[in-house]
């Protein structure tokens, strides 16, 4: 029986939220085509993890258990996934449009000779069994519909934070199937030497619910502290971002740049502090549910896109916001 497969992503013994989002989406697709919903996971010492996915909707869990999968490498993962997919022949294969999904799926798709719709914001199943996907192009300035129409499996990566996680059924159990790869460490041409941790322990921008972003108006690196403080006041799920001008001036690291040549983000709330709102910056954050602009220039283009704006000096406004948020939170 063909199936809807999702790649379960995990880190340090825990599933990433995208895994539950993909299973929730998978359940919807399953209600339309009746195929079984399967999760696929790779790793070392992951039996316990494999057993956790039934309640989230997985009918079957395939897991590839081996020392060689201990750390992610596109080379080893491509090999393992492609072999399993060839033997089981699923009709759909989904992953998150995460750092891992975006690195891995293009090669798996090429090896399987099938199509991949990358970084989708909407996925639905048509009557013909084909997935109708929508993916932003030109950094979100345009939406494009796309289908994988001739080949199998239909491969798609889904942007995190878009699917609501459906209720958990703790009585549901999945059939868990273990396989071992035919792959040796010596055969690999790549090796993970080291993981360099980031400066902050904040979550990734693409997964954040609230983003406090700073632009050239921040004036210097140390001033980003006031944005960190506001982010901390909001609490969990908050991250700090930056405009390219702030990054290029050395106020912020490149990996938090938001925009056409930075990250494309999709938070519930985006607070732009000292950011003018150039077309390249807007391309990266215009899908935020709510946008707040703080800028001393009342003519700044960002105000044309913001739901709420305060015209004023950010060094005055931001600390006051932090105070107000804290106050409101302590009141409960």
């Amino acid at each position, binding site marked *: 029986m063909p199936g809807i497969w999702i790649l379960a992503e995990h880190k340090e013994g825990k599933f990433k939220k995208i895994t539950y989002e993909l299973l929730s989406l998978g359940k919807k697709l399953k209600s339309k085509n009746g195929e079984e919903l399967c999760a696929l996971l790779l790793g070392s010492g992951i039996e316990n993890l494999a057993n956790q996915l039934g309640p989230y909707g997985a009918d079957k869990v395939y897991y590839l258990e081996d020392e060689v999968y201990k750390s992610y490498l*596109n080379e080893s993962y491509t090999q393992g996934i492609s072999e399993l997919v060839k033997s089981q022949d699923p009709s759909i294969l989904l992953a998150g449009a995460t750092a891992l999904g*975006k*690195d891995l799926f*293009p*090669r798996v*798709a*090429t*090896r399987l000779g099938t*199509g*991949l719709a990358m*970084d989708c914001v909407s996925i639905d199943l048509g009557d013909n069994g084909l997935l*109708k996907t929508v993916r*932003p*192009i*030109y*950094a979100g*300035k*345009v*939406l*494009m*519909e*796309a289908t*994988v*129409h001739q*080949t199998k499996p239909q491969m798609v990566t889904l942007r995190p934070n878009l699917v609501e996680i459906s209720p958990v059924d703790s009585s549901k159990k999945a059939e868990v199937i273990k396989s071992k790869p035919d792959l040796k460490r010596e055969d690999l*041409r*790549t*090796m993970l030497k*080291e*993981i*360099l*941790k*980031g400066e*902050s322990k*904040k979550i*990734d921008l*693409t997964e954040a619910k609230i983003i406090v972003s700073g632009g050239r108006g921040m004036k210097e690196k140390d001033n980003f502290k006031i944005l960190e403080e506001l982010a901390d006041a*909001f609490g969990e799920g908050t991250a700090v971002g930056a405009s390219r001008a702030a990054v290029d001036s050395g106020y912020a690291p*490149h*990996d938090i740049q938001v925009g056409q*040549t930075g990250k494309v983000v999709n938070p519930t*709330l985006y607070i732009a502090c000292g950011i003018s709102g150039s*077309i*390249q910056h807007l*391309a990266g954050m215009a899908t935020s549910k*709510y*946008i*707040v602009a703080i800028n001393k220039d009342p003519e700044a283009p960002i*105000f*044309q*896109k913001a*739901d*709420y*704006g305060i*015209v*004023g000096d950010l060094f005055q*406004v931001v600390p006051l916001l932090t105070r*107000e*948020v804290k106050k*409101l939170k302590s009141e409960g």
Partner: protein
Amino acid sequence: MNIAVCIKQVPDTETKIVLNPDSTDIVTEGIKLVMNPYDEYAVEEALKIKEKYGGKVTILCLGPEKSIEAIRTALAMGADDAVLLNDPAFEGGDSFTTALVLSKALSQIEYDIILTGKQAVDLDCSQVYAGLAEFLNLPYVSVVVGLELFPDQKKALAKRETEGGEKELIEVSLPAVFACQKDLNTPRYASLPGIMKAKKKEIKKLGLAEFCLNLEHVGAKGSKLKKGKYSLPPQRKAGIKIEGEIPEAAAKLVKLLREEAKII
């Protein structure tokens, strides 16, 4: 070291996009086209490698005739040779067919490493580098922000960006494909003599006939991903500017975030 760099010509990031009447593409007439910004990092890195170890930098570009402008930019920066892959049969292709055709062209030249941008900022697929690696049976590293080569050992150490500020150091045997990210380097501007020289350089053109491929493999026919309609996302409208003294305005904003947006 022989370095091959794959580049693409894309609309300038400043461009305001307009759709064509049947919403199957954007209007390209009159818009400014540039080398894909991420590819500039790839070209710069190639030039740096050549300066250090000697060798040759070859630019490959699949695209319409007009892409020659982007190729000339790369030549003006200092690249040695260039190939344009251009054929009506290539039109309407996707990442799969692009990678396939580029891989055929690459197998006709000598290279020790292949560099690309981490994605093209028009169709935002970020798939071509991986497809290239697969067709050529090479390893690849994506989102590269640091690259150190050890030519004697036929090895490289690449630093790649992952998530949440984390980076990975990956050791990889050469030849390999590297997809470049901003932060890898600062691309140089073309010098005036460079521009003059680039104008006179011969750009080799290759079409379908030069490869062992037929019409079914390339362009719209060979594509695995079928493009549907384009649409423009809903435009955001300006909301309210909160009036009053700053402390009051701040309190009011936070209240709105709780009551209207229900965020706090």
